[in-house]
């Protein structure tokens, strides 16, 4: 499970996250929604330490991530080597430009296992093919990203993230940049992952999809979680006026 406590982050003088507390249970899917600039993407990026944060703790299965308190009480970043190890337990998929254009689809998926986890080539290849088959793209394994549609690229990106056998999958608006007709195939892949009971945190604007796959939805505004609850609670029975306005606008 993931425990976030008291997370605060500023960009210069602007406070982007004001004390986030969030628990994610094993196998739980949490969706983060909110207006642009509310901090949902920043929160996601703090979880896998693509952004540094000034205060707060993030724990994965009991281990403190990213910062350690030294014996004399000073808060220090973990070493690069440690950070890499910690990152391998999480997979992330971005909105676009995920894949490395100079490698085939299969090589993209294999990159992590082979060079970060030192899995043997044979094993990695078998794993890669299995995952590509799972996202429906085994036939394209020798193609280059430029030859794939946006939806296909995103599916490969998901396979690549899964190749690391992560404990949690972080998804940053993965369908926002896609043409509408391609969104479905990506959402299908996410649906199929629910049975794996892997933790997922998704930042999304697709409220219908969030209702379907998320166990809980968190609505963020101005760097804080204003409301947190089941999809039915958040989307059908919103309490916060800001959330009500947000839902009205988006629908």
């Amino acid at each position, binding site marked *: 499970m993931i425990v976030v406590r008291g997370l605060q982050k500023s960009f210069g003088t602007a406070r982007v996250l004001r004390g986030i507390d969030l628990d994610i249970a094993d196998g739980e899917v949490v969706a983060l929604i909110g207006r642009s600039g509310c901090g949902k993407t920043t929160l996601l990026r703090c979880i*896998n330490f*693509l952004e540094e944060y000034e205060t707060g703790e993030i724990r994965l299965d009991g281990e403190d991530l990213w910062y350690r308190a030294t014996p004399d009480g000073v808060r220090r970043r973990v070493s690069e080597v440690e950070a*890499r*190890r910690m*990152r*391998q337990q*999480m*997979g*992330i998929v*971005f*909105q*676009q*430009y*995920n*894949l*490395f*254009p*100079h*490698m*085939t689809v299969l090589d993209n998926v294999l*990159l*992590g296992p082979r*060079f*970060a*986890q030192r899995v043997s080539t044979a094993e990695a290849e078998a794993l890669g093919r299995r995952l590509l088959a799972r996202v429906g793209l085994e036939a394209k394994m020798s*193609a*280059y*990203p*430029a*030859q794939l549609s946006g939806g296909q690229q995103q599916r490969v*990106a998901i396979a*690549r993230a899964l190749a*690391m056998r992560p404990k949690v999958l972080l998804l940053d608006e993965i369908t926002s940049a896609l043409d509408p007709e391609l969104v479905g195939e990506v959402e299908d892949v996410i649906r199929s992952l629910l049975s794996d009971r892997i933790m997922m945190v998704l930042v999304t604007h697709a409220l219908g999809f969030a209702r379907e796959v998320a166990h809980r939805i968190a609505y963020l505004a101005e760097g804080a979680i204003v409301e947190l609850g089941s999809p039915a609670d958040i989307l059908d029975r919103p309490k916060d006026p800001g959330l009500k306005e947000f839902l009205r606008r988006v629908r």
Partner: protein
Amino acid sequence: MPPGSLALLAQGAAVSLLLAAVAIVGGTLLAVLLAALAFSRFAVVRAAYRVYVYVVRGTPLLVLALLVFYAMPALDLRTGPYIAGTLVLIVYTGALLAEVFRGGVLAIPRPQWESARSLGLPPLAMFRKIVAPLVTRYTLPPYVNVCVMTVKASSVLSIISVWELTLAAREIIERTFAVFTILGLAAAFYFVMCFGIDRLGRLFERHLALKGFAGERA
């Protein structure tokens, strides 16, 4: 045309090409090092990089060459114009290529950096499998441009008595006054070298593009 001129010019051209080749190889190695400095964590190192590039790009090549040429005897290095000239050319090419490489690194879209970091790739793997291939593809056209500039720059070294194509031509002219023929031939040699490098570069670019990389960039 005075007898033996063609052979002399051809030899001169070979020397020019050799000078340029050494400068490009040396300059590329230097540029990789410099580009690494340009992205250093330490502000002082980054500032040093900027100063280096500013000075080398803001001073005419001839002035740099003369400075090294006249300064070397003072340092008790009796190595002559060839070493001085090659050194200056390497320094010059290195500065230009460092800026080219730096631009290439900056052109890599952010999500690709972050994907590589998120996969937990160790630094060597990240360089070998991600940074180097991408930067190579992004920087091929400007790199070829700098190669052509280096061949042309080698002619400046004639002024510090490095014997290459331009000096060969000038010597023949001062002997025989066949200005148009000799300079025309010299121009033809340079043209073939420079144009040739440019075409080779385009061929290589097309070869890389065929391997699926359709030039997609941020």
